[in-house]
């Protein structure tokens, strides 16, 4: 069976096309959309939970999507060590589904915020295997609820375990308050689970795979999928 990247789509997902485009067109790997009603992930070697407004983001971002039938399969896939990437709303879904700790609160500004920002790679994970710790990536953000929150104990655990994967910084890599676009605790932009196979982040690597549309730093994250596809094949 051919091994594919699976892009999970919920009603209201809108980053699915961009994720599909990044993997299928820019990376040229077999990719298929996985409907939220599907119950198994046969043939899927990499799962991407894309951005958007699943169920309109009503109630709480990701709060309804976590109950979609496909999420049981995603949970099993993650528990088996399968690589999962949650981008923006996908990150929110993964936290609501308890595949990642913490929660994403409204931006400190209380406003949606779209811009190109910088993040620093803080630790290794499946999704940072093609970048070095300390690298600075320029990526777009576009969210209203991206302020990462977890209680002190969880934050301390994430830090000591090296589960903080990306932190907001300025162009030179300095982690300063004015480089934190949404008030995230400890400028956290992305985290991993303990197994390092599940990563969620608010910035959009899938929107940054071609210099013509602003930058290609995101390509260095999505290329990590190649190793899983090779192993699986």
């Amino acid at each position: 069976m051919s091994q594919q990247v699976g892009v999970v789509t919920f009603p209201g997902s809108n980053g699915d096309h961009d994720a599909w485009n990044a993997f299928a067109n820019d990376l040229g790997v077999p990719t298929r959309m996985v409907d939220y009603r599907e119950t198994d992930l046969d043939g899927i070697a990499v799962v991407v939970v894309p951005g958007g407004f699943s169920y309109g983001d009503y109630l709480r971002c990701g709060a309804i999507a976590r109950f979609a039938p496909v999420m049981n399969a995603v949970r099993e896939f993650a528990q088996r060590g399968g690589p999962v990437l949650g981008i923006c709303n996908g990150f929110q879904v993964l936290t609501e589904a308890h595949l990642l700790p913490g929660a994403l609160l409204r931006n400190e500004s209380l406003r949606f915020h779209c811009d190109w920002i910088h993040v620093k790679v803080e630790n290794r994970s499946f999704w940072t295997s093609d970048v070095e710790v300390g690298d600075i990536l320029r990526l777009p953000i576009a969210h209203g609820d991206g302020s990462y929150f977890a209680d002190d104990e969880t934050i301390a655990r994430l830090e000591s375990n090296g589960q903080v994967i990306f932190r907001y910084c300025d162009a030179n890599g300095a982690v300063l308050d004015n480089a934190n676009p949404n008030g995230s605790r400890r400028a956290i932009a992305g985290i991993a689970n303990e197994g390092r196979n599940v990563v969620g982040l608010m910035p959009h690597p899938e929107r940054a795979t071609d210099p013509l549309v602003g930058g290609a730093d995101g390509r260095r994250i999505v290329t990590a999928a190649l190793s899983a596809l090779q192993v699986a094949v």
Partner: protein
Amino acid sequence: MSNAWVAEVVVMPKAGVNDPQGEAILGGLHDLGYRAVSRVRAGKQFRVEIDAENEAAARNAIAEMSDRVLANPVIEVYEIESLTPLTGAGAER
């Protein structure tokens, strides 16, 4: 005699005003098997602590700020669910 009051104000979409949030939550509940749910309306609740001479003054002030700020009278209605003296022990200061 306490001069501090606490009010619970509930803001809901006006009757007839489209409530996409309530509808999406209803759909989500149906998907989860809660088929018996026929309607969901989503609103907001505020707990407001205020200093005022007496209950009437507190109520007037809460009503005014509800009209002006807490609710958007074009699409929402509000109700002051309760207004009670703020006692030292229960106060969330």
